[in-house]
């Protein structure tokens, strides 16, 4: 390819601008087809979930399908008071606490690992391969492996030992991959500038790298929290005698055939939305403060 025809093409482009997605003017027919597809996707994504949120507000006559029978909070009360639905309150409590621990560790360790992966080092490919392996390994198999391992050593499985480790083997590869994407937008020149101005390694991390990467770290935290809060297969054999929330939901899907199940769906989604809101709010706050500091 020679440079001449290209520059001619660019010159022509200025005259007749008809790109695949023109920045102005009429849209190609594909736009309408794809907009239709996108709308269909979003409806299919949210429609069913909205259905069960609505159905969870039925009264005592309510069933698992439409039409809606009455309007009350009956099934929410039922969810937290009935013996047959299990210890939902305790499950929430355990899951949220475990997710917080997983989140903190995921953020710190993902950040450190991403720092290491910025340079090549002996064995880096092995570490990377192990990470990908841990990500794709079947969760249930890994969970049983952890269970058998603890059994062989003679330690009881419990939330903050075996379940924590099993969940980290899933959240950390995710966190590191997200950190890779975040780091790719980090300009090493900023770090060099800091060092040239006499900053120590720790000062560079604390005053340059961490503030720049802060929004990305919040994203990693969001990943860590939700992946743990929703983790099922790896936790099944490692959580010990008491259920986490997904395990509770699982046993409910097999035993409970009342809108209590939907009520649980509504409650856990509200918690998820609070977490997303908090994460987005934090990111916006960081960006705003940064904008104010820059001006």
């Amino acid at each position, binding site marked *: 390819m020679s440079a001449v*025809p*290209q520059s001619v093409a*660019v010159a022509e*482009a200025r005259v007749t*601008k008809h*790109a*695949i997605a023109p920045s102005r003017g009429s849209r190609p027919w*594909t736009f309408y087809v794809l907009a239709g*597809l*996108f709308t269909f*996707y*979003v409806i299919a*994504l949210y*429609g*069913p*979930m909205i*259905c*069960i949120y609505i*159905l969870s507000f039925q009264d005592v006559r309510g069933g*698992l*399908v*439409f039409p809606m029978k009455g309007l009350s909070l009956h099934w929410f009360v039922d969810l937290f008071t009935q013996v047959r639905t299990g210890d939902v309150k305790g499950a929430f409590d355990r899951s949220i606490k475990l997710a917080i621990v997983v989140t903190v560790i995921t953020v710190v*360790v993902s950040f*450190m*690992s991403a*720092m290491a992966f*910025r340079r090549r*080092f*002996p064995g880096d490919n092995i*570490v990377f391969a*192990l*990470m*990908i*392996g*841990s990500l*794709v*390994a*079947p*969760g249930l*198999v*890994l969970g*049983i*492996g*952890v269970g058998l391992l603890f059994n062989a050593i003679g330690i009881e499985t419990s939330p903050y030992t075996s379940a924590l*480790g*099993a969940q*980290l*083997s899933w959240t950390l590869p995710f966190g590191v*991959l997200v950190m*890779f994407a975040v780091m790719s937008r980090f300009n090493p020149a900023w770090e060099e500038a800091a060092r040239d101005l006499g900053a120590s390694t720790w000062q560079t991390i604390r005053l340059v790298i961490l503030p720049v990467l802060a929004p990305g770290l919040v994203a990693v935290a*969001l990943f860590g929290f939700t992946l743990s809060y*929703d983790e099922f*297969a790896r936790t099944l054999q490692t959580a010990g005698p008491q259920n986490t929330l997904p395990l509770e939901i699982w046993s409910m899907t097999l035993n409970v055939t009342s809108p209590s*199940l*939907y009520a*649980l769906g509504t409650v*856990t989604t509200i918690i998820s*939305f609070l*977490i*997303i809101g908090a994460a987005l709010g934090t990111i916006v706050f960081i960006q705003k403060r940064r904008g104010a500091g820059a001006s």
Partner: protein
Amino acid sequence: MAVSRSMTSWLYISPLMLVLVPFFVLPILVVLVASVFETDGFGGLIPTFTLANYGTVLTSGLTYNLYFETVKFTILTWFFTLLLGFFVAYFLVFHVRNPLLAIGLFLICTVPFWTSNIIRMISWIPLLGKEGLINSALLHLGLIREPLEFLLYSGFAVVVAYVHQLTIFMIVPIFNSMARIDKRVVEAAIDAGASRFDIMRLIIVPLSKSGIALGSIFVASIVMGDFFVTKVMSGGGSASVVGAFYEDISVLQYPGAAASAIILTVILLVMVSLILRSVDIRKEITQ
């Protein structure tokens, strides 16, 4: 200098290894060891080396049925998530003109990812059921006389639930790689006389390859390693490799289950390394 540099790198990476070794490498090794042991029939393991477990697994017709079902669901899910994910990402990157709107629509696609998977799966029941919304709507419109039975507790429902859960795993990496395509390349191609199909074939698809590869790894490994969706949404009609593994474990048949798990893990690892051989994901993400 070089030595101290790699020391620093290993210092940074050591916490990750402290998780991966005891909670990924060792458990897989334990399963591997269990797969060559004999069982006493009561959940105990007799430490004698045998390949009989693999023999049993590999000669059983049931195994091939399980793999056939699992691979079928994996391919169907992969196909539909890729189709949807690719075009949704393409629409957002190349057709939505306002970048802020594109990000907003992208976030709308990602929000359900942060909510419970199990709940999202269950949420299809009031829609697809015999008395569900879709059947009653179709009956109402007079399009059908009897409720469609195949909608729920069927292979169809399994694929719907998987596609619903996993399309996001395609959208995010493909969106990410498409967003990095220089729009001027596309404009130059148009000006040089390329058709829209050519642009898709020669520019967009090759430059989105890393996103497609990453998405495929996620989708394929999740579907192949899952048993829950198949169990619930097929109503017990379909089985999966991991589902059978779970059943074996609950009746304490550890060695057989372990052998089957090792075969599955090996298949997964081979598949993933084949995909990774075609694209250097690490390079693609970091640069």
